[in-house]
């Protein structure tokens, strides 16, 4: 039961990290677009 709970938490932590990484990719994409547009 504890292992099941641990795996559930680890899965959600991985999803959260993937979300953060994806967010950074999107952020850097928009920063690049904005800076290129400004030039």
């Amino acid at each position, binding site marked *: 039961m*504890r292992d099941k709970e*641990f795996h559930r*938490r680890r899965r959600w932590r991985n999803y959260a990290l993937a979300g953060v990484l994806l967010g950074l990719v999107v952020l850097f994409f*928009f*920063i690049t677009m*904005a800076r290129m547009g400004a030039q």
Partner: protein
Amino acid sequence: MTATQYASVDAGGAASAAVGQEIALKDFIALLKPRVMSLVVFTGVVGMVLAPGALHPVLAIVAILCIAVGAGAAGAINMWYDRDIDALMTRTKNRPVPAGRVPPGIALGFGITLSIASVSLMALAVNGVAAGLLAFTIFFYVVIYSMALKRRTPQNIVIGGAAGAFPPMIGWAAVSGDITLASITLFAIIFLWTPPHFWALALYKKDDYEKAGVPMLPVVAGRKATVWQMLAYTVALIPITLLPCYIGLSGMVYGAGALALGLVFLGFAISVIRDHSDRSARRMFPFSILYLFLIFVLLLVDQSLWIAV
């Protein structure tokens, strides 16, 4: 491996969590001192709005994000450094590090990582001046205030207050790319507001600070000296809040509002002198936060009126 939570007691008396335990997301958020962050972000945004020039909306959002994350990172490093005295004070003993929910090393690593990330992103996306100011603010809060001043001098929050005063300058620099008299004026308002704000809190939390060995002015110099210094800073603050009118940063709507608010703040400072209990200090502290918030709201309102006209 299952999630195991175990705690030990370090040299400072703070319960310290072991590496490997589960840390709740809310504790990571608490490390960033979100309530302090909200005022920092707000004053930073006002600096951006008032600054001459224009910034791409995406870059403006990035600048705000960097100010927020940088402020939070400084808070996390501060919680790592102050974990021994935080454990002794009622107000701070439930913070994630002294309560044993976050290991000190994790808090430090989290703070350093976010500091580097926020300054780097500000430099890459916005400009070097804003990034330099953000880096200096984090350095000032952590090294000058937390490590050098806080435990050594009753002037800790007077000089250390500069750290909280930089955000509008960072916001201004993010848009205009420079430091001007106008942005220094915004800095000065927060700088002079900090002593009466913090000493109001220190007056009714004196026992807490004394227990932790933090030489706040009420602990070292007593109530009488503190309340008179609070009055002196409040009196000095009022003309400084009117400076934006003289330098053309804002108009009479702001001026009238700032003067009215200043007089109310002065009334609170006088009531703290006349009242020998903690009641008036307890009332002045929340009002001081509202006061600063409204001063910066007035700057925004005045600016929007100018644009509308």
